[in-house]
């Protein structure tokens, strides 16, 4: 029987897509598999072992950097999400008003500038402040992370707000809800998935950052990515694979949650 004509079919597209997915996952798969290698090779299998995970867990520098990463990402994501939620409420669902376009441009600015430029700018700026104040704690990293997290948190929250039916809030006002009650009982519950998505996006973006962190950090303030970057310039052992595997697992867990939160809106 002849194959039914499929209007969507384009010759070769499926093959290319399959190759892309394969190529996308092969290196990651290899990376994860060799985290369980008994020997210290990254390409010759010498048997299964959890040895490298144990090594990583016992490595004080790794634990230290991981905790610092989580600490920075946690604080930066919370602050950025709150600021982004407020900004999203201020910039959506209104007739254009003076300064609205300016705000859009301003909030999205960190997305438009190459990271290396922002990194250099912060290096210069913060090194001045460090000299003036003598303070060289974590606050610099947290502030820097918060700033580049704001646009990432802002995007899903704004999208959610814009897809929200304005008549729902009108209905609330019609039913005697004051502006504050309208926000509390209608806007916020409906916005919540967007806020959650924004928070997770901000959290992951902060957790993943290498460039800005590498330039802004003071001595002894390695985050997990900058620690890994430092190690990668030396000899690479499967310990790196083990760290990466755990990191991957966390990312996948977050993206899974994000995916389901976002899907609910449909």
């Amino acid at each position, binding site marked *: 029987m002849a194959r039914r004509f499929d*209007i*969507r079919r*384009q010759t070769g*597209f499926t093959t*290319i*897509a399959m190759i*892309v*997915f394969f190529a*996308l996952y092969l*290196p*990651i798969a*290899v*990376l994860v598999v*060799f985290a369980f290698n008994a020997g210290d090779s*990254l*390409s*010759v299998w010498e048997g299964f072992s959890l040895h490298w995970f144990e090594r990583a867990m016992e490595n004080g520098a790794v634990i230290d950097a991981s905790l610092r990463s989580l600490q920075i990402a946690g604080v930066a994501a919370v602050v950025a999400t709150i600021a982004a939620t407020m*900004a999203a409420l*201020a910039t959506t669902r209104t007739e254009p*008003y003076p*300064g609205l376009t300016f705000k859009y441009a*301003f*909030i999205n*600015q*960190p997305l*438009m*500038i*190459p*990271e*290396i*430029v*922002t990194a*250099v*700018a*912060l290096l*210069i*700026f913060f*090194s001045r402040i460090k000299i003036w104040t003598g303070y060289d704690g974590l606050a610099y990293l947290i*502030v820097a992370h918060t*700033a580049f997290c*704001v646009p990432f948190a*802002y995007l899903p929250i704004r999208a959610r707000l814009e897809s929200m039916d304005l008549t729902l809030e009108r209905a609330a006002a019609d039913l005697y809800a004051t502006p504050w009650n309208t926000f509390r009982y209608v806007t916020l519950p409906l916005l919540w998935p967007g806020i959650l998505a924004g928070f997770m996006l901000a959290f992951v973006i902060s957790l*993943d950052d290498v*460039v800005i962190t590498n*330039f802004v950090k003071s001595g002894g303030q390695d985050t997990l*990515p900058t620690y*890994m970057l430092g190690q*990668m*310039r030396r000899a*690479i052992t499967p310990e*790196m694979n083990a760290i*990466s595997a755990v*990191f*991957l697992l966390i*990312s*996948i867990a977050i*993206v*899974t949650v*994000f*995916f389901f939160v976002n899907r609910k809106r449909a």
Partner: protein
Amino acid sequence: MAERDALSLIEAERRRDIRSRWLLSTPALLIILFAALGPLFIVLVYSFLTPGDYGDVKWTFSTEGWVSVFLQRDIFDDTLTIADAHLTIFWRSIKLSLMTTVVTLIVGFPTAYFIATRSERTRELWLFLITIPFWTNLLIRTLAMLVVIRNEGLINTMLIRFGLIDQPLQMLFTDGAILAGMVYVYLPLMVLPLYASMEKLDFRLIEAGYDLYATPFRVLTRIIIPLVKPGMIAGSILVFIPSLGAYVTPSILGGGKNLMIGNLIELQFGAGRNWPLGSALSIALMLIVMVALLAYVRNAGSSGVKHG
């Protein structure tokens, strides 16, 4: 008079609304001003200062930073010649970024189309699969690429084991390695906007195309591509801009020799100890990005009108 009262009340209400909107956006604006946008102006200022002896700057005005972006001064006789090294790096950055954009577009287009034409349920899964790398640490993805292509890596090990080669192929520390790494790392940034515009594609238009005697290839070039052009442009800009400023991928896969602009900038703040030059290079990079963005905005503006 009552009319006037009502009017001024409405006007007052509107002004109050705008004021509270400014108040609400203040925290976000302040954070970005303080830790993203504001410091850029300091970079601009620094690009016109004199390098300090151990990094940092001396507060004397100088255009030397900008001059040495493209020219180099001979140590002995002060003559200026074209800075070949810098030009090579600029050229490599632009070339590799354009190539990355083109390659991701060529392989990303069929991939996005494949996802967009799946059934409602499996589409979610494929989308999920393309999203995971997007959320995965860029460093880890670069490391994964490094592990596969280095001399002791998977590819070389396999090739030697099967007797196809005797000596490992030198793939790492080449422009090709940087290109492969950037394609690998930035591909999701191309696929996602492409998918977004393909998802909205009205497949009845394709039916109409076939009904009017178009071949599959004609349908692709005359119907699908024009309709998803906004997605192609958005994806290209999303890939091009980070590629141009890439730092991690070239520094790991390109080694010490195959620098891109990002590495050149870093060098000035590290071993080079030439902060004004680094600042000038940063501003130059930003200007190139701005030009690309402006081109995008103009393009998006015109194609946005056409497709609603």
